[in-house]
């Protein structure tokens, strides 16, 4: 049984087709890599899985339940959490508060009980705080807890966003380019963190440009090009796939494609 099934989805913006006939599945416990040159439609796909965009055609199923057409918050409640390509923190809150927001869907206090500070709400609030700390510490963020998120460096923001997503206790975690903008040391840390997340039983879908990282982590990879999948398989297969090599013209499977991706002359593979 597939955990997440993307079936034949299509989405266009104006006249531009961003995604077309995309199908793949993610199995429980897997780390699935999603790669492809800029503009291949990876983020669009993420936005559809998390409910920010609706596909024009096709369906997305999570644990055998159709989630197309649901609102992002409903999808989040079903157990899918995500990070954004540009860390999307609540900048005027502290790091701790950001992660506490991650506990939102695991708590219930209402307008009424919160303003009256009913005993149940007070207890729940303590629990939220404790859980938030529990998710901060393993990512090395405890020392930053009281800092306003707006004052953090880029790499720290990525980590806080990850902690916030984990605080929702997702079953499926979507990471949109978690390594971009990180230095070598931070990337190594990230690699360890992602392994631990997987070990804790969370399934991951990973969009990433850092080939070394993806090839190292992913069990299985989908390659998108111009909005359609051109290859699908374990890292070893992908690295030797002629279509993929052609797309990443440099052909070095374990390096970032050359800086001037846009300068490459793409030939659309058939």
């Amino acid at each position, binding site marked *: 049984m597939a955990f997440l099934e993307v079936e034949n989805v299509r989405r266009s913006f104006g006249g531009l087709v961003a995604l077309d006939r995309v199908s793949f599945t993610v199995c429980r416990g897997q780390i699935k890599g999603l790669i492809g040159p800029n503009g291949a439609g990876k983020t669009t796909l993420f936005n559809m899985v998390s409910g920010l965009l609706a596909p024009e055609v096709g369906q997305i199923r999570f644990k055998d339940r159709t989630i197309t057409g649901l609102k992002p918050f409903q999808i989040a409640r079903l157990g899918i959490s995500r990070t954004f390509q540009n860390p999307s923190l*609540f900048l005027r*809150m502290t790091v701790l508060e950001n992660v506490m927001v991650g506990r*939102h869907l695991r708590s219930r206090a*209402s307008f009424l009980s*919160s303003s009256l500070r009913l005993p149940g709400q007070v207890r729940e609030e303590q629990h*939220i705080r404790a859980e938030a700390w529990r998710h901060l510490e393993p990512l090395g963020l405890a020392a930053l807890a009281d800092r306003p998120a707006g004052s953090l460096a880029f790499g720290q923001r990525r980590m806080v966003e990850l902690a916030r997503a984990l605080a929702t206790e997702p079953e499926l975690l979507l990471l949109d380019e978690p390594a971009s903008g990180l230095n070598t040391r931070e990337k190594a840390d990230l690699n360890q963190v992602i392994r631990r997340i997987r070990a804790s039983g969370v399934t991951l879908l990973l969009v990433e440009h850092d080939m070394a990282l993806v090839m190292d982590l992913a069990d299985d990879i989908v390659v998108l090009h111009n909005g359609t999948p051109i290859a699908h398989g374990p890292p070893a297969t992908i690295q030797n796939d002629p279509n993929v090599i052609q797309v990443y013209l440099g052909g070095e499977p374990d390096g970032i494609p050359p800086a001037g991706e846009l300068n490459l002359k793409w030939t659309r593979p058939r």
Partner: protein
Amino acid sequence: MRFLQCNTPFATFAVLAVVTQLVLRAAGMEYCLTQLTMALYYALVVLGLCLVTGHAGQVSLGHAAFFAIGGYTSAFLTTHDFGPLPEPAWATGLKQARVLIEHSDLYGGTALSVSPWAAVVVALLLTFVVAHLIGYPALRLKGHYLAMATLGFGLIVSKIVVGTAQLGASDGITGVPEWPLGFGLTVSGRRTLRVENYYIACGLLLLTLVLLRNLIRSRVGRALQAIHDRETAANAMGINTAAYKLGAFVLSALLAALAGVFFTHYTGSISPSEAGALKSVRYLALAAAGGMASLWGVTAMSVILNYLSLRGFFGSYDNAVFGAILILIISLAPEGPLKPLGQWLRHGLNRNHHPRDETTGAPPGASDGAPRIH
């Protein structure tokens, strides 16, 4: 100790309220309490805006309309003569339950009107319904569109109020009876009850402040702030953004209506100017002047400025003053003029006592958390 610290601002507020009253009595200026009481009621409306605009980031230019809905409903029901009623059981029942009460009218006859308590309930229910009807579609809009939609709503209410003879048209409704709250307290403009009513208003404001403070520092407050900061991310974190925005909007509308009800029973009348767009703009100006998200800043600014305005301090430049406040504050100190002052005060206090405790011990007028405006 922590409890004490958390509640210092509230204690300060209470002490300040008592001191003000005693000083005014000593100076023989107790008549000033009347305008002060009215200013305290207006502050309730601005506090509602502080929640919906400062925290949830949704602009409302229609809050005077909710004030008017509260005030007018209450005024109409308590002054309109519904009698003589037919005598079926339900009418008698309503009378026995004291929902309908007989009182003498202007000409010495008897009139049958709704009791103040029942009228308040109806006023708040009506506000609840209207706020949902307007808020549900309006809050899907953003920025300019939301501002215009709420402004349009405010204008509709104000035109209806002016154009309806039963609501007194351009004269408004006068002769609104006093409102016995129970516990020996009465909301009334009688001179003998002036001090009592001042404390009723203080108490109501203090209660509102406590409840809002609790709300802001809770799961709900964080959700609202998250929506303000990044709505998409908030939604992706499982926050039902539409429902939370609506909740904050309805709550602030109810606060405005409650203020309208108290105000109307206190002054004994309500006029269409209370529903005007200029009032809505004024509330927003006051919220901006107080730093938008700072409960204490907003309270201080709205009580002081409204008091000065009610005493006629700004003369014929009244509206101009509020317009200028808007322009100056937003262009020079968009986070409110009190923020730098508050930081300075807090800095001084912290040096003396506690080196780091950012969430507590803010003196009134200092900001409650970082003032946010968007």
